[in-house]
């Protein structure tokens, strides 16, 4: 078994049941698939523009929610507080902003669908259902 798979399995065993977390984007950037390394930079607010020049707007669920944790571990291979440490460095030195925190998946869907250049995620089976979003 490859090392990465073993770690992923260990993550899942230690951090509860694995739900399918998936990124969603506004239709203006739907054709672009960032690598995992790029996703980490995007969700830590270190990469601020899409290749087409549009500014990136990042939405996340509450940082201590199960959905956020699953997303960080599955899609970014980072622990949530390690991700937050990256944007905290920008926020508290004044040099950048954190992602916008939204209260639930319904609001997440609405905001991602209505904000050009937006990216977010859905943490449950909702991600695979249709609507105003594109899976990456």
């Amino acid at each position, binding site marked *: 078994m490859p090392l990465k798979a073993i*770690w992923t399995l260990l993550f899942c065993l*230690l*951090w509860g049941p694995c739900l399918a977390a998936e990124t969603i984007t506004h239709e203006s950037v739907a054709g672009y698939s960032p*690598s995992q*390394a790029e996703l*980490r*930079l995007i969700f830590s607010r*270190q*990469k*601020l*523009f899409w290749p087409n*020049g549009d*500014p990136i*707007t990042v939405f996340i669920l*509450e*940082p*201590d929610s199960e959905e956020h944790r699953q997303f960080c571990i599955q899609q970014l291979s980072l*622990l949530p*507080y*390690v991700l*937050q*440490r990256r944007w*905290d*460095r920008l*926020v*508290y*030195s*004044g*040099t950048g*902003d*954190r992602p*916008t*925190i939204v209260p639930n998946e319904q609001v997440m869907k609405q905001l991602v669908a209505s*904000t050009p250049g937006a990216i977010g995620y859905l943490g449950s089976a909702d991600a695979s259902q249709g609507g105003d979003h594109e899976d990456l």
Partner: protein
Amino acid sequence: MRTYSFIFLLLFSGPLWATGQDWQFNGYLNQAYANVDGSEFIVGDDSSSFDLTEVMATASWQPLSAVRLAGALTYRQWGTLAESDVRIDYLFAESRWQLSEGHLGLRAGRMKNEVGFYSSTRDMSFTRPGIMLPQSIYSDYFRDAQLHVDGGDFFGRINLSEGILDWHVMAGRSASSEDLTRNIFGEGDFGELDSNSFFSVDLEYQADEWRIGTTYYSAGVEYHPGGVFFAGELDLHAWVFSAEYSWRWFELTGELLLGDRHTQGVYIPPAAGKIKDHNRGYYLEGRALLPENVELFLRYDDYVDNTDDDAGSRYAAQSGNPAYFAYSKDWTFGGRWLLNKDWLLAAEYHWIEGAAWVSPLLTRDPNQQAKNWSMLMLQLSYRIQW
């Protein structure tokens, strides 16, 4: 100051007129406790202190995609090292231009310097590695002479295939307070230190597993004498090299400082002219990121005040003080527990030999400072993200 106050008012009144995602507010509160055995570092005459409080409120407003205003107000007291005070931590206007792979930008106002990995966020418990930063690189006694810079920052970012390269060129004047004078000379009428110029160049590369940085800075301090000392100035030039390697649940971090200090007057008779000496500091830290949001770390921090006099024998012969005032070796074991997204509990224990960074630097008292000493620190932090 009046201009700063006006911009602040404008920034923090954001909720009244701003909408959507163009403004953000953040804040935190840290309360720490220190118990020190064998030294008066931080705690003064008492063996322990609760006078370790840090409060910060920040606001950021982005009216246009290329323009941003950011400001922060802090209240801070840090035992004997910083008296209780409210200050503008930073307040600047920023303009960015997007490039095909990255951006360029300009900031003007008061900014935090970017020396090493932690300087710009050194007061924020969630971002710094422990309660007290490794003093070899981030000495608390000298914090004031370099942390806040009134001036300009020309900065940029280049997106590379698997990482980013950030750089800053910062120039201006550092905004120091009376804490600096007291930390160098001690209590009493010893005149005043005034920060002069500050200049720095900072480069940092961050990829998945590596974070590597280099900073050069120079800080000038002018001395208006009092007591037994002489009028003069201090010029400090330093290189800081930083590296961090992360592999899943483990992080290894090291930073090295190589400094030149040019001293004219102050404690050197004017006839002796300008004296140049070199100082050196480094630390190595291993950190484990454990389940349930717990981190444990072990750090070794080493500082030598004059690299031509590692063991302090020359210092001892010249000053009559024990040689252990010329160096510091600090072993720290600590941990943090993120109770939930807003609360952080931290604890650390220091075993220290030597007292090179124990203030006051120029009026040492061997009766109050042992060669081997220790420190226990605890801290509870809360943050707010509007």
